[in-house]
C-alpha cells in the first residue's frame, strides 16, 4: 500500500478496521473524537457494530459484553472519559476477555484542557481500577506507529486475553503524517473455547469476574500474574537511538520520546554522547534494557509530559546506581526539542548526584525559570 497523509486518530480507527474490528462503542471527547467519527461512517458501511454510547461507563460495559463473545472490540476516549471506565476495565481484566482501549491523553487533572499530555501513565500502566491487574500498554510516537500498535494491540489482547491500551496523546492523535495502512484483513470467526454466544450443542459457559471464595480469587490472581510474566517475557518493545556509545541516556515515550529524539540529534551534532530509549510497550516496561544501560551511562534523563510518572518505573529499574534527572511538562504543555536539548546539556555539564527524588530539583528549576 502507498503512504497517505493521515491523521493519527483516523489512522488508529482505520487500522482497527483493517485489523478486523467487529464492534466499536465509544463516546465523543476531544482530542479523540475523530476515531469515533471515522468509525461512525465506516463500521455501518461494513456491516459491523458501531454504537455511540450514552457515556464512557456504558461504552466500556458494551465493550465488555462484546468482548465476551470473542469478537475484536474496541473503545476510544481521552483522559476524563478513561477515568470513568475504571470499574469496567477492572471487570474486563478480572474476566480475562480481550479488549482494546485507545486513550488519546489530554491535560489534567479534572477537566483540565484538551492539549496533549501524558499524565495518565500511572492510571493505564499500574491500574486505575481496583484490584491487581496488568494491562498491556502501547505508546505510539507517530502516525505510523499509531497504526502498527493498534493492529498489534488486537493481537496481544487476544493472545493473552487481556486489556491492551494504545496510549496516545493529543499531539499524535491530531497530527497528520505520511503513513501506510495495512491491507484489509478478513474477519475470521474464531471459536474460542471461552467465548459465550449461546451454548448450542456444547456445555453452557459463564464469564464472570467473581470469585466469591477468596482462595479461588487468589488462585485467579496468581494465574493472571503468571500470564503477565509471560507477556513480560515475550512482548517488551522499545526503540533505541544512538545508544551504542552513549554516555548519557534519555528515556521518553510517545510524543515526549519523539521530541527528545530531535534534542538528542542536536546534541549529537554538538558531539554530546547521548542516546535515547523510547519504550514502545510502556507496560511491559523495558526495564531489562534500562538496567543494562544503567551499567554504562553516567546519567539518565527521563522526559515526560507529566510530573514524573514513568520516572518511577525507571527508578525501580535503575535503583540508585546512576543519577536520574527528570524533565517534565505537565498540564498539556509539549516540550520543544530546544527545551530537552538544554536539559541534556545541563545534565552533561552538571555534577550529577544520585538523589531520592529527582522531581524535587526539577520542580525547583521549573519554578525558577
Amino acid at each position: 500500500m502507498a503512504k497517505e497523509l493521515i491523521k493519527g486518530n483516523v489512522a488508529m480507527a482505520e487500522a482497527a478496521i483493517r485489523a478486523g474490528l467487529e464492534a466499536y462503542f465509544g463516546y465523543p471527547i476531544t482530542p479523540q473524537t475523530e476515531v469515533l467519527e471515522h468509525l461512525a461512517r465506516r463500521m455501518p458501511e461494513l456491516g459491523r457494530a458501531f454504537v455511540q454510547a450514552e457515556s464512557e461507563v456504558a461504552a466500556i460495559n458494551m465493550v465488555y459484553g462484546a468482548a465476551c463473545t470473542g469478537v475484536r472490540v474496541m473503545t476510544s476516549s481521552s483522559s476524563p472519559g478513561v477515568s470513568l471506565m475504571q470499574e469496567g476495565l477492572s471487570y474486563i481484566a478480572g474476566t480475562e476477555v480481550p479488549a482494546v482501549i485507545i486513550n488519546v491523553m489530554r491535560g489534567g487533572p479534572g477537566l483540565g484542557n484538551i492539549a496533549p499530555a501524558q499524565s495518565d501513565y500511572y492510571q493505564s500502566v499500574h491500574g486505575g481500577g481496583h484490584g491487581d491487574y496488568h494491562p498491556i500498554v502501547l505508546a505510539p510516537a507517530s502516525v505510523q506507529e499509531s497504526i502498527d500498535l493498534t493492529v498489534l494491540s488486537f493481537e496481544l489482547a487476544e493472545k493473552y486475553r487481556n486489556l491492551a491500551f494504545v496510549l496516545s496523546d493529543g499531539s499524535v492523535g491530531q497530527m497528520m503524517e505520511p503513513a501506510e495502512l495495512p491491507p484489509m484483513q478478513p474477519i475470521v470467526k474464531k471459536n474460542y473455547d471461552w467465548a459465550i454466544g449461546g451454548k448450542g450443542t456444547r456445555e453452557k459457559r459463564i464469564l464472570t469476574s467473581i470469585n466469591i471464595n477468596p482462595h479461588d480469587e487468589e488462585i485467579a490472581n496468581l494465574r493472571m500474574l503468571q500470564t503477565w510474566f509471560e507477556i513480560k517475557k515475550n512482548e517488551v518493545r522499545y526503540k533505541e537511538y544512538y545508544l551504542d556509545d552513549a554516555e548519557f541516556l534519555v528515556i521518553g515515550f510517545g510524543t515526549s520520546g519523539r521530541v527528545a529524539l530531535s534534542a538528542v540529534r542536536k546534541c549529537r551534532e554538538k558531539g554530546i554522547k547521548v542516546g535515547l530509549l523510547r519504550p514502545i510497550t510502556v507496560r511491559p516496561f523495558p526495564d531489562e534494557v534500562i538496567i543494562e544501560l544503567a551499567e554504562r551511562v553516567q546519567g539518565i534523563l527521563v522526559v515526560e509530559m507529566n510530573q514524573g510518572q514513568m520516572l518511577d518505573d525507571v527508578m525501580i529499574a535503575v535503583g540508585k546506581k546512576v543519577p536520574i534527572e527528570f524533565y517534565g511538562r505537565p498540564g498539556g504543555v509539549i516540550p520543544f526539542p530546544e527545551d530537552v536539548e538544554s536539559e541534556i546539556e545541563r545534565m552533561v555539564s552538571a555534577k550529577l548526584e544520585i538523589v531520592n527524588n529527582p522531581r524535587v530539583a526539577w520542580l525547583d528549576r521549573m519554578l525558577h525559570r
Partner: protein
Amino acid sequence: MHKEIMIAGYGGQGVLFAGQILAYTAMDIKMQVTWIPSYGPEMRGGTANCTVVISDQEIGSPQVAEPPIAILLNLPSYDKYEPLIKVGGVAVVNASMVDRGAIRTDIRTIFVEASRIAEEIGDTKLMNMVAVGALLAVLPELDIKEVKNALRLHLPSRHHALLPSNYLALERGFDAAVSQGHG
C-alpha cells in the same frame, strides 16, 4: 533540510488546507513531514492555525516554539505570531487584511495582497493558495510544480474543476513575491 512552517488565520480562510497541501507536496517528494492543527474547545470560528514540518530526517516535534516560516492571513494572527518568528525567519502576510507594516526587522516580511488577488481570480477562497504561492518564492525546496501536482493528486476529484484557478492562485502569489524582490 528541515523547515518549520506555521500558517494562521481565521477559521474558514483555508488555513488547515493550505498546510495540508504543503504536507502532501513534501510527502510526494519523499520528504518526512508532519502537519498538526491547533484544535480548540471552541469550534466556533475563532482563529485557526497549523504547523507543517518538512525534513529529510525523522521529525522530532510536530510543534514549533518559534517558527522560522509563517503564513499569517489576518491581523490577529499577524499580531500574535509576528513576535514569535525566529530571528532570520520569513513571514508571508496577507496584506489585504492587515493594515499595518512590519515591526520586526530581524525577519523578512513578504506582504502579499492575497485576498485582493484571489478576488481578481474570481474566488476569494483562493486567498490561501495565493499566500502559499508567495511562500514558495522563498522556499525553493518545494517546487511550485510539485505543489500543483500535489493539488491534482490529493484534491478530491469532485473538485478538480477548480484546479486551474488554484494553479493560477499559486502562480499569482509566487509572482507577487518575486516582483517584490523575494525569491
